[in-house]
C-alpha cells in the first residue's frame, strides 16, 4: 500500500472508530478529556507505525489495544507518583491482577458507551456552542480545524471551546452514566437539539465553507441513525431522523447549477433521493407506531413527508400540512411555525387566508430580523396581484438576509414585480 493509501485508510478508520474508542476509554478512566488524549495517542502511534508495518488486519482492535496500553502506562505513572518507592513493586503486581477487569471493561457493550458519550457531550452544564463542538469532536471525529471551518470561527476559538468544555465536565464531576429516568426526556431533548443544530448548520448554510456543509449534514444524519439504534423506544429520535432523512433527500434538487436556491415547489422531484425518502418515511412510521402524541420533530417530519409523498407539487396535501402546523404551533408556541402555517393555509385555502395570519405576526419581536417574514408576505401579496407592496417586501427581505445567493434571489423576485403585466393588478 502506498504511503498515501495508508494515510487515507488511517483517516477512514479514525472516522469510524474514534467515538467508540473514546467512549470505552471514558468508561474506564471516568474522564472524557483523558480518554480523548489516550485515543489521540493511539492515533499518533498508528500514524507512526502503519506506514512502515502496514495496516493491521483488524485496525479497530489495534487502536483499542494501543489506547489500552497507554491507559495502563498512565495508571502506572499515577501509581508511581502517589506511592512511596518501596510500595511500587506491590502496586504493580496488584495492577497486573486488575488488568483482566480492565480488558473486560473495554469490551463491554459499545452501544451504551456511545450513548453515554453522546449524553455527556450534550450535557446541560455546557453552552450550546460547546455541546455542538464537543459532539462533532468526540462522536464525529472531526478535527478542530474542520469544526472551525464549518462554523466560520477561528481554530483557536474551537480548540478553546473544547478544552473548556472538557474542563467543565471534569469539574462538575459529570458521571459517565445514562441519565436517570426522571431526567431522560430533557437530556435526550438536548442531544436531539445538538444533532439537529449540526444538520441545519449544514443544510441552511448561514456561514462557512461550501465544502464543509454536506459533511455536517451527513454527520448529523449518521449520529441520528446511530441514536435510533441506541434509543429505539424514543419516538422523537425516530422523528428527528425522519425529518433529516427527508430534508437530505432534496439536497441535489434545492440549488441550480450556479448555486441559486430552488424553492421546494419548483424543485425537480425526480432529483429527490428516493432511498432517503423511503428511510425517512419508515422512520416516521416507526415514531407514529411507538404511540403517544407526536413531538415537534415527528410533526415536522410528518409535514416533510407530505411533500415527499406528492409526485408533483400540485398533488401536495396542503390541508393536512396546515393541520400539522397547527399542532406544531400549539406545541412550540413559535411565531416561525405560525409563519409556516400561514404559507400552508395560503396553499390550502388561498393567499388571502395566509395573508390574514401573516399580518397578525408583524409585531412579533422574534420575527423582527427574520427575512422570511417579508419574503412570505411579499409572495402572498404577489399572488394577490398587489405588486407594489410585494416589491417593497421582497426588497426588505433582501436587505435582511446574510446569504448572498438568497439576497440575489429575493432581488430577482422584487424586479419581477415591476416586469409583470399590469393586467394582473
Amino acid at each position, binding site marked *: 500500500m502506498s504511503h498515501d*493509501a495508508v494515510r*487515507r*485508510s488511517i*483517516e*477512514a*478508520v479514525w*472516522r*469510524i*472508530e474514534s467515538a*467508540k474508542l473514546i467512549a470505552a476509554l471514558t468508561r474506564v478512566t471516568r474522564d472524557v478529556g483523558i480518554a480523548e488524549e489516550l485515543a489521540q495517542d493511539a492515533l499518533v502511534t498508528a500514524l507512526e507505525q502503519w506506514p512502515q508495518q502496514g495496516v493491521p488486519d*483488524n*485496525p479497530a482492535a489495534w487502536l483499542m489495544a494501543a489506547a489500552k496500553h497507554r491507559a495502563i502506562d498512565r495508571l502506572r505513572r499515577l501509581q508511581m507518583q502517589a506511592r512511596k518507592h518501596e510500595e511500587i513493586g506491590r502496586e504493580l503486581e496488584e495492577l497486573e491482577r486488575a488488568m483482566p477487569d480492565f480488558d473486560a471493561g473495554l469490551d463491554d457493550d*459499545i*452501544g451504551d458507551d*456511545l450513548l453515554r458519550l453522546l449524553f455527556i457531550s450534550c450535557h446541560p452544564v455546557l453552552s450550546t456552542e460547546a455541546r455542538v463542538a464537543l459532539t462533532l469532536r468526540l462522536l464525529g471525529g472531526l478535527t478542530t480545524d474542520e469544526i472551525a471551518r464549518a462554523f466560520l470561527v477561528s481554530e483557536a476559538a474551537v480548540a478553546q471551546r473544547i478544552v473548556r468544555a472538557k474542563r467543565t465536565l471534569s469539574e462538575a464531576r459529570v458521571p459517565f452514566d445514562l441519565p436517570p429516568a426522571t431526567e431522560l426526556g430533557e437530556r435526550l431533548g438536548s442531544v436531539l437539539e445538538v444533532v439537529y443544530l449540526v444538520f441545519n448548520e449544514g443544510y441552511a448554510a448561514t456561514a462557512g465553507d461550501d465544502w464543509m456543509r*454536506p459533511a455536517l449534514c*451527513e454527520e448529523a*444524519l*449518521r*449520529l*441520528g*441513525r*446511530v441514536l435510533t*439504534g441506541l434509543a429505539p423506544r424514543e419516538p422523537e429520535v425516530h422523528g428527528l431522523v425522519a425529518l433529516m432523512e427527508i430534508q437530505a433527500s432534496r439536497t441535489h434538487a434545492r440549488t441550480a447549477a450556479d448555486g441559486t436556491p430552488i424553492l421546494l415547489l419548483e424543485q425537480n422531484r425526480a432529483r429527490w*433521493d*428516493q*432511498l432517503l*425518502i*423511503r*428511510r425517512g*418515511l*419508515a422512520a416516521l*412510521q416507526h415514531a407514529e407506531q411507538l404511540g403517544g402524541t407526536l413531538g415537534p420533530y415527528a410533526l415536522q417530519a410528518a409535514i416533510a413527508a407530505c411533500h*415527499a*409523498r406528492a*409526485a408533483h407539487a400540485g398533488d401536495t396535501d396542503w390541508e393536512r400540512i396546515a393541520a400539522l402546523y397547527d399542532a406544531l404551533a400549539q406545541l412550540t408556541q413559535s411565531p416561525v411555525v405560525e409563519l409556516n402555517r400561514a404559507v400552508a393555509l395560503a396553499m390550502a385555502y388561498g393567499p388571502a387566508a395566509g395573508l390574514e395570519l401573516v399580518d397578525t405576526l408583524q409585531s412579533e419581536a422574534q420575527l423582527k430580523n427574520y427575512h422570511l417574514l417579508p419574503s412570505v408576505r411579499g409572495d402572498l401579496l404577489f399572488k394577490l396581484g398587489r405588486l407594489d407592496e410585494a416589491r417593497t417586501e421582497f426588497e426588505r427581505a433582501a436587505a435582511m438576509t446574510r446569504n448572498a445567493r438568497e439576497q440575489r434571489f429575493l432581488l430577482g423576485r422584487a424586479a419581477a414585480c415591476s416586469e409583470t403585466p399590469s393586467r394582473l393588478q
Partner: protein
Amino acid sequence: MNRYLCLGYYDEAKFEAMDKAELQALVSQCPPLDAELRATGRLQMVASLAASRDSVSLRPRGGRTQVIDGPYAEAKEVLGSFFIIEAADIAEAIAIASKHPAAQLGETVGWAVEIRPIEYCRALEQAAAA
C-alpha cells in the same frame, strides 16, 4: 458522500453441508458484528437472498430473451446477501464493510464481501406510504 454496494458471497454447497450445531455456532457470532455495522450509522440497507437455485437468468439470444433457470455465472461461490453503505471514499467503505460478518467469519464456507462503488443510483418508483 458516495454509495457502495457490498456483495456477500458464500460457498453454497459447503454452507448447506454444515450441520445444525456448526451453523448455530457461526450465526450466533453475527449479531454483535451486525450491531457494530449499524452503529457506524452508514448502513443504508441490507438484504439476504434465497438459494441460488431459485435464480432465473434472462439472456438475449438471437434477438429473443431466453429464460434459463439458475444464476448467471456457474460458480461454487454465489451471492448470498448485499448491503448498501455510504462512505466518503473507498478507504472508509473498507473500514465500514469490514464489520460485516462475511468479512470476519465463515472462512471455511467461503464467506467474502466484494465492495463495488455505485456510480448512479436512483429508485424510480415514487415512495408509497411506506
